[in-house]
């Protein structure tokens, strides 16, 4: 029973935390301006530093989007480099000052929050997310050569040494797993060729991977309703598309949601089978102990007490199972959270309490009560004389 309860607790906790992590208001991004291609691919690359961007967009087009009345701000970025398995993204500096990765929260390099150092100020400087720094054992002053690509075997910019000057405080988002360099550094990395180098000084030639867009709010903090018009208009263009994370991510969950439903079903089945086994063991135990119960009856206990003994036994078993299952379930979440953090940068907490945690004990007690009714009735109807008969 404990195992079933633990599985239920772990599955529900992980599912709810995953939902919250992926959906948390699009990780601070109202919309992503990106190239034509798969919207899901754009979101995975822009927000989760996975996969690759399907193309580039013109800087001039990005500036035209910024002029739309409902666009409050845009933060351009370029992806496509890596180091030590972590993505190296070129980004505008105001990403660290203006961008709210969750509402009300900005990136911090403050040592009191777990950060170190400062923002990059020169071409050959970088800041790194907390999880990437820990995994690569980075310290301030360390330097690296970015890899031109995200696959093993991709060429290295051997003549471009970039120094880490800041470590961002933990945010609990995939941004903890990225390395950031100045936007213009991308254009001046050796090996990119003249057509890329000229982008540093000529906006008409410049291309970027995409931009995070912040949309104006209306009363109540709701997104401006014309965001759909903006998305419609941009998507008519042959050059770019506008992707709204909160529209794409539920589709992703719809695709993979079956996996957690299967896990939940398996955990539920284990729990129900354990209840069935409890019933069997109570019935068998009653058969073994009928003489003892008859003895108790003969000593003065009435039928209700005997009935109550069986019920209490079941309730105690289920209560202990629920408590042990609850604790074990959170331990499982804690163990799983460690590996998820390593792989995705998303933080899961063993101390997250879902509504199931509060319902587990009462529901299991109820199941224990229901399970014990039939054995209880059998005990209630136990014949004293018949069961005290000497067994020869």
């Amino acid at each position, binding site marked *: 029973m404990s195992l079933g309860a633990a599985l239920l607790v772990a599955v529900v906790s992980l599912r709810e935390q995953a939902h919250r992590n992926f959906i948390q208001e699009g990780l601070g991004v109202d919309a992503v301006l990106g190239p034509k291609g798969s919207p899901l691919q754009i979101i995975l690359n822009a927000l989760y530093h996975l996969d690759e961007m399907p193309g580039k967009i013109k800087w001039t087009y990005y500036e035209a989007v910024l002029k739309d009345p409902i666009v409050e701000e845009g933060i351009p970025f370029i992806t496509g480099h890596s180091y030590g398995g972590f993505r190296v993204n070129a980004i505008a500096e105001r990403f660290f000052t203006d961008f709210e990765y969750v509402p009300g929260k900005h990136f911090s390099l403050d040592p009191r929050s777990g950060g170190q150092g400062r923002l990059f100020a020169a071409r050959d400087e970088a800041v790194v997310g907390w999880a990437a720094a820990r995994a690569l054992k980075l310290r301030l002053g360390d330097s690296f050569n970015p890899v031109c690509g995200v696959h093993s075997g991709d060429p290295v910019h051997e003549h471009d040494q970039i120094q880490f000057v800041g470590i961002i405080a933990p945010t609990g988002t995939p941004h903890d797993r990225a390395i950031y360099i100045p936007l213009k550094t991308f254009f001046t990395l050796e090996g990119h060729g003249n057509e890329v180098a000229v982008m540093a000084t000529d906006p008409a030639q410049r291309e970027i991977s995409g931009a995070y867009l912040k949309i104006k709010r209306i*009363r109540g903090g*709701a*997104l401006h309703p014309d965001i759909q018009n903006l998305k419609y*208009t941009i998507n008519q263009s042959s050059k770019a598309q506008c992707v*709204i994370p909160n529209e794409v991510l539920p589709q992703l969950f719809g695709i993979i949601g079956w996996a957690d439903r299967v896990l939940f079903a398996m955990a539920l089945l284990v729990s129900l089978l354990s209840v069935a086994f409890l019933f*069997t063991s109570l019935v068998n135990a009653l058969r073994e102990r009928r003489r003892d119960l008859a003895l108790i009856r003969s000593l003065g206990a009435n039928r209700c007490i005997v009935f109550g003994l069986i019920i209490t036994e079941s309730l105690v078993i289920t209560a202990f199972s629920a408590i042990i299952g609850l604790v074990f379930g959170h331990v499982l979440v804690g163990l799983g959270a460690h590996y998820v953090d390593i792989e995705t940068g998303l933080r899961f907490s063993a101390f997250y309490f879902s509504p199931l945690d509060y319902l587990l004990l009462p529901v299991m007690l109820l199941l224990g009560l229901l399970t014990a009714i039939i054995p209880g009735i059998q005990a209630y109807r136990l014949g004293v004389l018949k069961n005290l008969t000497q067994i020869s």
Partner: protein
Amino acid sequence: MKTYRLLVYITNGFLMLFWLAGCQPSKMKIAEDSQCKEEHAHSHEHGHHHGKEGHEHNAHHGGCLNAIVTCENGHAEVKITEDIIQCWFVGGGSDTGKATPIGDKSITISITTAGSTLINTLVLQAKPLVLAEETIGHCSYFEGKAPWLKGITTFTATGTVQSFRGKTVPLVIEFPKGYDPD
């Protein structure tokens, strides 16, 4: 034996309950639906009943869809906001999310409001969507403004589009229910 039979019945009963429990709306759908409660800020498209029966197409701007000759040919999505009529020319069939630029620089429509025999004339001017790389003469969005439009909630309008997919076609608008001759 009796006990085991009982156990089998109970287990089957739990399995049946568990199977029925699986037939519940997913939490994700509930989360999606709950977004509809935000005032004006829901991020899915409006589905509007196009015409009298049957088929539905999405009006991406929250307006009403009016077939250009036939539903498969194309639509004019029309919306009225205070004293402005907005008109988007979009694709036919289910392609109502795709803009269909036309060559007209302006479209003159004659408007009749409910309960009135008075015919008003309004000129819809082309307003190219810059981000969609449109220009005058290759434009899918038109706008017309007049003070007498304020407060109007129902109207019928007719006009002519000179260059819709290279052809001259009649424009019929029935607001708010939409026009579908099919």
